[in-house]
């Protein structure tokens, strides 16, 4: 009986976590480069009341036994790296990756982080930086007089100087990918850092044969959160929470009646 109470409680806490996850997805529905996360659940251990295969008579065995499960737990909330929609902007430093790669960003601590958010800007010294002012790797510097900045599909950044016709090359943006991108760890500000599960970064050029994807200038990648799906998930999570709370109530009522047997 206590098992029913705890199973239902585990279901309630799992749904609570599910709703936390859904609300974070919805809160980031307009975050550039945000990738949705999905909670995954697993059943917990089973308690053998009658072991399967135990003898039920001299020559017969119980075919299936009686196993009571002890509830659910949250296994993971994994990142879904599907492509988000592209929105056109007029900023020449807004980039999207049409493919599976990541931009490399040098954090203020000096370590490299990875991101899909390509809304870049220039800092005071002309370096390409992300929205938080962290430098893009490899470092690309544009002179203050640079005109008509062009970023090719393979990441080559070129510009012309006032009064000149010849284009100058400032550098080439390289991209990174991972064996298991779902194993990356989010550190906020749309940045990811590698873990043992993701493996080390594999660096390559955009548009190459590595399949990292090509760059598109003048677009940003919107989040891949589907608001409709999230609302459906929200409804089912809420109903599942409600159903589990009903079981708590039922278990409590039955317990009370059992206690009232000797009134």
């Amino acid at each position: 009986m206590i098992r029913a109470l705890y199973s239902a409680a585990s279901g309630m806490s799992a749904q609570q976590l599910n709703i936390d996850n859904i609300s974070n997805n919805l809160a980031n529905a307009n975050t550039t480069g945000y990738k949705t996360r999905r909670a995954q659940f697993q059943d917990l251990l089973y308690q053998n009341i009658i072991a399967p295969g135990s003898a039920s008579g001299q020559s017969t065995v119980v075919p299936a036994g009686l196993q009571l499960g002890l509830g659910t737990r949250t296994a993971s909330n994994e990142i879904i790296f599907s492509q988000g929609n592209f929105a056109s902007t007029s900023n020449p430093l807004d980039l999207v990756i049409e493919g599976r790669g990541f931009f490399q960003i040098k954090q203020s601590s000096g370590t490299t982080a990875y991101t899909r958010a390509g809304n870049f800007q220039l800092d005071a010294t002309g370096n390409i930086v992300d929205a938080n002012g962290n430098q893009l790797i490899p470092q690309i510097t544009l002179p203050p007089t640079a005109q008509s900045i062009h970023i090719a599909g393979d990441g080559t950044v070129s510009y012309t100087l006032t009064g000149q016709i010849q284009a100058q090359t400032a550098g080439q943006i390289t991209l990174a990918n991972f064996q298991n991108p779902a194993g990356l760890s989010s550190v906020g500000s749309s940045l990811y850092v590698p873990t043992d599960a993701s493996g080390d970064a594999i660096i390559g050029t955009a548009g190459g044969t590595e399949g990292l994807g090509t760059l598109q200038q003048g677009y940003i990648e919107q989040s891949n959160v589907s608001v409709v799906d999230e609302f459906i998930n929200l409804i089912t999570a809420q109903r599942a929470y409600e159903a589990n709370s009903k079981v708590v109530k039922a278990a409590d009522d039955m317990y009370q009646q059992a206690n009232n047997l000797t009134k």
Partner: protein
Amino acid sequence: MDNISISAASGMRARMESLELLANNLANVETSGYKADKEFYSLYTSLDATSDPGTGEIATLPVIENHWTDAAQGELRNTTNPFDFAIDGDGLFSVQTARGIRYTRNGSFKILPSGALAASDGSPVRALGGGQIVLQPNIPVDVLPDGTVRQGLQTVGQMEVVSFDRNAINKEGSSFYMAAPNAKSKPASGAIMQGKLEQSNVGTAESAVRLVAIMRQFEMLQKAAGIGNDLNKQAIEQVARVVS
């Protein structure tokens, strides 16, 4: 105790176990690939209880003798994640865990740092006849309905999908099933669908109905036990009253 109380108490215990099964089903209503457990009631007849010396009737008590797992297909939900797989129809994915081969309907797979396709706990998915399915990074993966995994039209391996008799497998937790030691597997007929996950097949509406039924039956049995109790009480207090 008298017969009424014993029968009623046995019935109450069985309903409590039913509620425990139902609670576990409802807790796992969002667990991918979860299959609902249901109970069989049966009549318990112990050898000692076979004959009542007076009437020769056999005393029978309701108990939950065993449970069965409802293998009905869960709904397939689109996830757009290329490493989510669902089986449409009969079959189980085989996974090589540290404890031996386990089976699962939860096709939410991941890639290990080595490139091997693995279940959510990191145990590699078995290729047909053993071995792992190792993927190259950066090349899109597509999976055919028979479980053949391809990258850029090159076949990398085939997932082992097997089928067992219902009684030959037991739940182990963490979405895994364990096969009985001598169980024979056969090739499965289900189709592998990429980018989909099988939802749990627990029906919330049906569970709500069962919840009400269990509670009302419990209430009736409690009343019956109470009546048995009253009869006993009257027997003790009135029949055996010594008139002074």
